[in-house]
């Protein structure tokens, strides 16, 4: 009777130990993916922060564009005879190109200022050893789809953008 009870208890203990070990091994095997890669173009284009910045910048660009169109209209109506309008038009077109170049540069800078710490957090939270940025210029020549974490990272950065860390 006592021997029977001992055998039963031992069986339970061994079974629990085996299950616990299996869970730990499985968890380690699935949760830790050491090297992954991300499509940088898709990542930045899908970042809501970038879309918001571009929308804000577009409003200002439309303002300058409207001024250019108005000046062109005035020039046409005045019969192309006023050099002052030409000067104003040149200034407006120069302002447009300058603003466009400057805002693109600033948007890229701001986007990466926000992205860098988020990507670091993502890597740490997911136990990554290395996260490679694929940009279509040969940094990643081949990658198995299972190592592509672009969609996960996009979901992560957009959630953090809307909710904060």
């Amino acid at each position, binding site marked *: 009777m006592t021997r029977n009870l001992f055998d039963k208890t031992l069986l339970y203990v061994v079974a629990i130990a085996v299950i616990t070990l299996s869970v730990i091994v499985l968890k380690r095997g699935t949760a830790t993916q050491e090297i992954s890669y991300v499509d940088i173009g898709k990542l930045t284009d899908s970042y809501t922060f970038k879309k918001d910045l571009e929308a804000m910048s577009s409003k200002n660009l439309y303002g300058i564009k409207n001024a250019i169109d108005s000046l062109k209209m005035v020039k046409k109506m005045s019969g192309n005879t006023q050099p002052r309008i030409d000067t104003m038009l040149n200034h407006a077109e120069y302002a447009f190109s300058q603003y466009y170049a400057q805002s693109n540069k600033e948007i890229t800078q701001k986007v990466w200022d*926000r992205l860098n710490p*988020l990507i670091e957090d993502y890597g740490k939270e997911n136990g990554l050893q290395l996260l490679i940025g694929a940009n279509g210029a040969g940094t990643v020549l081949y990658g198995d789809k299972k190592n592509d974490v672009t969609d996960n990272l996009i979901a992560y950065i957009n959630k953090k*953008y*809307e909710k*904060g860390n």
Partner: protein
Amino acid sequence: MKRATNILVALSILCCSCGQPGRLAPAEYIHYMEQDAAYKKKVDAGNTQYTIQLALPGYMALKDAYGFNRELNADAYSKRIKELDGFVFFLVNIIKAPSGDPLKKMAASQASTEQMVMYYESAARDITLKDGDAELKPVTYHFENNDNLSPYNTIVVAFPDNGGNGKDLQLVFNDRYAGNPFVKASFPKTLITHPPTLLITGK
């Protein structure tokens, strides 16, 4: 059977109490509000870090009612909580990356002066609270200038508490001076509708 029922009841109570702060003494309440990740969100924008804390009237009243001797004046608390009731507060901490001697920098930099003027006078226009479909503007705004003696400055803003509509509250700060638009932080409404219980036992 009776034993099994008792165990189930005990387990249910244990499960229900998990994650709930329960009843907190004033110091614990303040600590909880300042440390709990749900009430405090961070946004890292390169050279500037923003920490946005949802501050309930109870927290604000407690901070006011605590004297320098670290003792709570219960009467002052009761008076203050009545004044603050019906509002929801946010503390926006702005931490700039250190660069050189802060005092010298402050004195010399025209930019810093402009920044202070901007934060004092016009930043309130750049803060909104999205409460469901409504976009609210602050009813009160205060900028705490630390004169660069501490590494951060704090903006305190308050909005009317529109009650529970089930949707998250989202604070949006367009920090024009630091050039950081769309600094956002969301907080579930349940943090306001079901805050931890505060135990006041002071004089």
